[in-house]
């Protein structure tokens, strides 16, 4: 779960990291209501120079004209209006963070994430700020510190890191203090990535978080009070409505995974795949066979019938589909009867029953019962349904689906 800048900054502030004074406007009308306009006017004349930042996830906001500055009140209102008229990834901008413009002496880059080499947290700290990728091209690399999750980050380690990054004297210690606070924030909120870019050093030698890019570990969300209503703070510009809806299926029902990752694609073959590895293998196979998947989604870990029903309804709600592939290897413990019953029930709650071909390739506990049920179901509702067990490999099933969807005759004996 990616947090918008202002949400991320709330967490940083909570941990004692300075953020620039700012106000958040939730929607377009906000700034026009006289009460809020009054509040904004007071804010503006207190600080006189402001930075107006559209709240969207994704880098290079400044380059994309989504972060603008103003030092005149009337101009700033126009800038605000201008930003509200922009769209980002097809979605209107509905939240702005308006901050005091700081007097910048220097900018730095701080990032904390999980490292698969040390299997623990790693802190990256570098000079430069903002354009880390450009810096990397010039051979500038941030210094790093692998932290022992059991022993924590000691002051002396943080100081050694900041010294290595080029900080000296009092700055070495104040930067180390910021690193320590960021690390405690990283752990406290179950972060997957915590990035502050830039860390701003002001002309009066204070350090501020100029931005906040925080991704929360999806598996940690359930125990975080701060994220009770998760989708509210989800970045809607990255996820389509269907993806958001699909993600909600798993919250507060931890048995199995269904819809946690729903990716909208521009093709026409709907895919309901099972198993993390198997689902990726099948997507590769569909592309290989010349098919265009309409989505990627995965369910596994013996999810309930209800979860699969919801996922089916969401996945097949896309108009103009040409086929639907339900595919997985042999399940170890996922109840095939229960999950395929969920699939059948999902078809029934669609606006209209599918008239495109459906290919199911599945095996595992209670698969015979499941296939008998589906055969009967397909006959009753006149659905073009083809069932395969393990005699047809996953990649072969993907190829058959592609052929059926695009109207070619089914080829027998596809090499697997």
């Amino acid at each position, binding site marked *: 779960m990616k947090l918008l800048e202002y949400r991320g900054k709330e967490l940083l502030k909570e941990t004692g990291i300075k953020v620039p004074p700012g106000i958040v406007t939730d929607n377009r009308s906000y700034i026009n209501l006289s009460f809020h306009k009054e509040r904004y006017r007071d804010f503006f004349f207190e600080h006189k120079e402001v930075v107006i930042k559209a709240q969207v996830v994704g880098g290079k906001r400044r380059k994309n004209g989504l972060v603008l500055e103003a030092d005149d009140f009337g101009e700033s209102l126009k800038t605000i209006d201008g930003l509200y008229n922009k769209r980002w990834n097809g979605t209107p901008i509905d939240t702005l963070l308006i901050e005091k413009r700081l007097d910048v002496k220097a900018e730095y880059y701080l990032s904390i994430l999980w490292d698969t080499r040390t*299997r623990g947290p790693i802190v990256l700290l570098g000079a430069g700020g903002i354009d880390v990728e450009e810096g990397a091209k010039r051979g500038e690399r941030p210094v790093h510190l692998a932290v022992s999750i059991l022993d924590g980050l000691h002051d002396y380690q943080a100081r050694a890191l900041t010294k290595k990054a080029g900080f000296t004297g009092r700055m070495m210690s104040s930067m180390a203090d910021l690193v320590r606070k960021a690390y405690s924030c990283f752990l406290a909120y179950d972060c*997957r990535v915590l990035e502050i870019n830039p860390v701003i050093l002001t002309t009066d030698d204070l350090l501020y978080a100029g931005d906040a890019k925080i*991704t929360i570990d*999806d598996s940690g969300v359930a125990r975080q009070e701060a994220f009770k209503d998760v989708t509210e703070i989800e970045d809607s510009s990255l996820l389509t409505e269907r993806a958001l809806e699909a993600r909600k299926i798993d919250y507060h029902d*931890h048995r199995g995974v269904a819809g946690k990752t729903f990716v909208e694609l521009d093709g026409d073959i709907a895919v309901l795949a099972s198993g*993390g*590895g198997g689902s*990726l293998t099948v997507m590769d196979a569909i592309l290989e066979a010349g098919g265009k998947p309409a989505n990627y989604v995965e369910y596994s870990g013996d999810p309930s019938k209800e979860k699969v029903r919801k996922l089916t309804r969401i996945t097949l709600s896309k108009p103009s589909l040409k086929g639907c592939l339900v595919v997985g*290897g042999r399940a*170890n413990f996922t109840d095939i009867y229960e999950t395929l019953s969920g699939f059948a029930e999902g078809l029934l709650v669609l606006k209209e029953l599918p008239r495109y071909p459906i290919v199911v390739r599945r095996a595992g506990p209670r698969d015979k019962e499941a296939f008998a049920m589906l055969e009967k179901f397909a006959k009753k509702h006149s659905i073009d349904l083809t069932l395969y067990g393990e005699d047809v490999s996953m990649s072969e099933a993907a190829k058959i689906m592609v052929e059926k969807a695009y109207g070619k005759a089914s080829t027998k004996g596809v090499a697997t």
Partner: protein
Amino acid sequence: MTILLDTNTRVVVQGATGKMGRKITKEMLAEGTTVSCGVTPGKGGQDVNGLPVFDSVAEAKTHDPKLNTSVIVVPPLLVLDAAYEAIDAGLGLVVIITENVPIKDAARIVAYAARKDCRVIGPSSTGVICPGTGKLGPIGSAKEKDMYSPGRIGVISKSGGMCAETSRLLTAAGLGQSTVIGIGGDVIAGSTFADLLLLFEQDSETDAVVLFAEIGGAYEEIAAEMIAAKKFTKQVVAFVSGRFAETLGKGLALGHAGAIVEEGFGTAQEKKKALKAAGVLVADYHHEIPALVKRALENR
């Protein structure tokens, strides 16, 4: 001989009284594994499949002093506590089946286990099977003769489902398996490809190892480095899934939490390149694996 699991293995199931706990207890017993007892805090005194259930792993250890392995199936947010309990009770192997364990908890468990000399498999492991000897977790059964069969090929897979699919292909080609391990596709894995290759290196019953790899993280690259450094000298065949995911751009976790392309590393192409450079035979299609294993065995 096999790795991780042999006739001395004695198992406690943590979370034994839950739906999954009952199911795998029954399955493991049927597979020939010695399951000693179960643990569910607050349910001590009950029984699962005729086996006693205790409130703690320490009590289970008193009941069976030879207990050495735990299989954990408790809910995600309880895994940290359960794993610490097993490690503190002195068990040498902890297999975590539970999915959706927070990264922070997994990292703590892995670091603590390393300190206490305990091996962890998972989280999100589908289990371990030594066909003919027994199994840990829900991984499947060697009783389904077309899937797992005894033999001399090791399998290490980030994907649970593909443990079965890969073994099925091997079995169909007459290639039985020594030990098959689902290591899980999480960001933090208790045992990585490299960790387990070291065990297979020592195993006289294994001739070659198949890796089912996936985009994201550096576990494949680490394996490639250790193979290149001749720390693993047997034959290796690998398949790397997730090429599709790379068409979507950075920062999206697909299928498994660890299957994420971040900061330009961890792509399928880079992993394939690293593995090939280390002398690993890399399959472009999953179904090519058995043929490559046969070729690898001829190369010995």
